[in-house]
């Protein structure tokens, strides 16, 4: 009984439960939930993972940023910039897929560096610092694409978004890879401790010797890298770089994912896998609604309810009131 209690109170329980319930609903609605043919996996379940891969990547980076008590509103715009850069390299310079990928990731990291510098060195509030890039970023992306949508034909590059390896979509492998890399870096060094302590109390951390500025810089660079990779997948998926629409509002979905996954917006303890589960919940809801006959706009209303519910469940004040209400019934 005690172990059941422990499972239920685990941070991952509720998001996972919601995800599983959503999948069950999806299975009921979809004619092709999961199948394997030609050595590849297919179906609505796979779609959730593939469609959600971009938000999952963003959520990985966003978790680290939020854990330090910050936020990154610019990730959608960074996706647009990275997609634009890679498309431009592929078409105007006939670059190879490797160069295009490096270009996209590089520009993502540079954007992250920019954000990190504003927050860590200039002391700007994260919401404002990243709002600047969020505003200007799509303009920069359009500068690169010269105001048009660049389309390209490059099988190797497009594989990022459409290809399969060992029967599983490459975009899913990329998410897994990023999770492992970031997880390793965070857990094998004392980075997790540093990040969480900065999020809990930045001043105390600085006094205790934690290199606050450097850690802050790092988390924004990671967020930028994740956004850069997501942008590459986005462009590869449709073989086009659309500066206006790539990653539009995905930053909000990423923040939602991180919060659903159990992290507090004010910073502190974080969980990378929790963020991924959160992202899957968001995408699962979207795909399920798209598959059903319910209007696609209902997705937003559902997201609204989910946001508020999750925040309420995380709020100590709400839980206290709930317990008081439960205790009042004899």
């Amino acid at each position, binding site marked *: 009984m005690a172990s059941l209690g422990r499972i239920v109170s685990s941070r991952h329980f509720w998001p996972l439960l919601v995800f599983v319930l959503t999948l069950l609903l999806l299975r009921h609605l979809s004619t092709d939930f999961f199948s394997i043919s030609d050595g590849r996996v297919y179906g609505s379940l796979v779609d959730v993972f593939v469609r959600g891969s971009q938000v999952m990547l963003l959520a990985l980076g966003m978790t680290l940023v939020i854990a330090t008590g910050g936020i990154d509103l610019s990730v959608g715009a960074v996706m647009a910039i990275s997609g634009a850069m890679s498309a431009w390299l592929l078409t105007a310079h006939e670059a190879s897929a490797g160069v295009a990928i490096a270009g996209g990731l590089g520009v993502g990291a540079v954007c992250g560096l920019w954000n990190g510098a*504003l927050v860590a060195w200039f002391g700007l509030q994260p919401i404002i610092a990243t709002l600047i890039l969020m505003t200007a970023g799509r303009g920069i992306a359009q500068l690169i694409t010269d105001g048009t949508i660049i389309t390209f034909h490059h099988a190797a590059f497009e594989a990022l978004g459409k290809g399969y390896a060992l029967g599983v979509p490459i975009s899913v492998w990329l998410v897994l890879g990023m999770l492992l890399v970031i997880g390793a870096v965070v857990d094998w060094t004392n980075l997790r401790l540093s990040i969480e302590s900065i999020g809990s109390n930045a001043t105390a951390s600085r006094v205790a010797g934690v290199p606050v500025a450097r850690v802050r810089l790092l988390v924004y660079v990671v967020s930028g890298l994740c956004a850069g990779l997501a942008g590459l997948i986005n462009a590869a998926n449709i073989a086009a770089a659309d500066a206006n629409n790539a990653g539009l509002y995905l930053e909000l979905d990423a923040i939602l994912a991180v919060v659903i996954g159990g992290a507090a917006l004010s910073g502190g303890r974080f969980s990378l896998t929790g963020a991924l589960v959160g992202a899957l919940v968001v995408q699962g809801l979207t795909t399920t609604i798209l598959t059903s006959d319910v209007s696609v706009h209902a997705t937003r209303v559902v997201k609204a309810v989910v946001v508020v519910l999750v925040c309420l469940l995380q709020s100590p004040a709400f839980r206290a009131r709930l317990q008081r209400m439960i205790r009042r019934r004899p």
Partner: protein
Amino acid sequence: MRRLLGPRMLPLAATGLVVVLLYLAAGAKFHDSNWFTYRVLRDLVVNNGVLGVLAIGMTFVILSGGIDLSIGSTVAFVGILSATLLGQGWSPPAVITLSLVCGVALGALMGWLVASFDLPPFMVTLGGMFLMRGVTLLINDSQIAITHPTYLASGKWPIHPAAGAWLIALVVALYLLHYTRFGRNIYAVGGSEQSALLMGLPVWRTKVAVYACCSLFAAFAGVAQSFVSLSGDSTQGVAQEMDAIAAVVIGGTLLTGGRGYVAGTVLGVLILGLIQSAIIFANINSWWTRIGIGLLLLIFVLLQRAIQQRVDRQ
């Protein structure tokens, strides 16, 4: 004059100076394209009236230390609601009243969640944004024309609806913030919630009221928008909350709360409008607008930080 340049007013005066300088600089370049005409000034006010109302409402929330992401979606909701109901025969006063009531209700709900359970305003108002946009799109996912004679006649009013709305909002906001206890409480709560609590101020009530106020302004902006465009548009106001936040920040209000003036927000909106006008006049690619606004935001925020640090040190 000395008071005008005092530490509190310096940022505001400086911002005002920037507005004038921008206007003159653009004029230097575009004077033979009719920049220095009355029409350009008038367009500046009319084009940005609705954003002006939104930004003023946002100022309230930011002064209290919070944020509100739902205002753009509220504008769209009011537009679609108005157009739908007018098409079914409702009268303008009824429609307008209902719209404002919906605004207050949404704001009060969000404020209650923030104040009672200490939920992060970012997330609660994000939920508000999703809710309003979703409901709007569910009612109608494109546009509905408004053909009611009162609305149609607004084209002949002595004051353009957008300009009038902005003026009304400004006057009301100035009164609330500088001449009522509510206003003083907002500044106190934004400055330091702990201190405000200790001083015995009604923090909970202030917080709920501040979000209700902001949504009321947003609903009012929506009403103005419906007069301006004579239609309800479900895609209206997308990402407009970010523009409003930018205007508030450029206007000198601190995101941490407790410091700032509505007048600053007005100047912020004017600056955004001037940038956009200048870029159209310059006939360069419109994406420079975004880059320009981003740069401007950066410069202003850095400058404000520098000034603030100097002021705090005194």
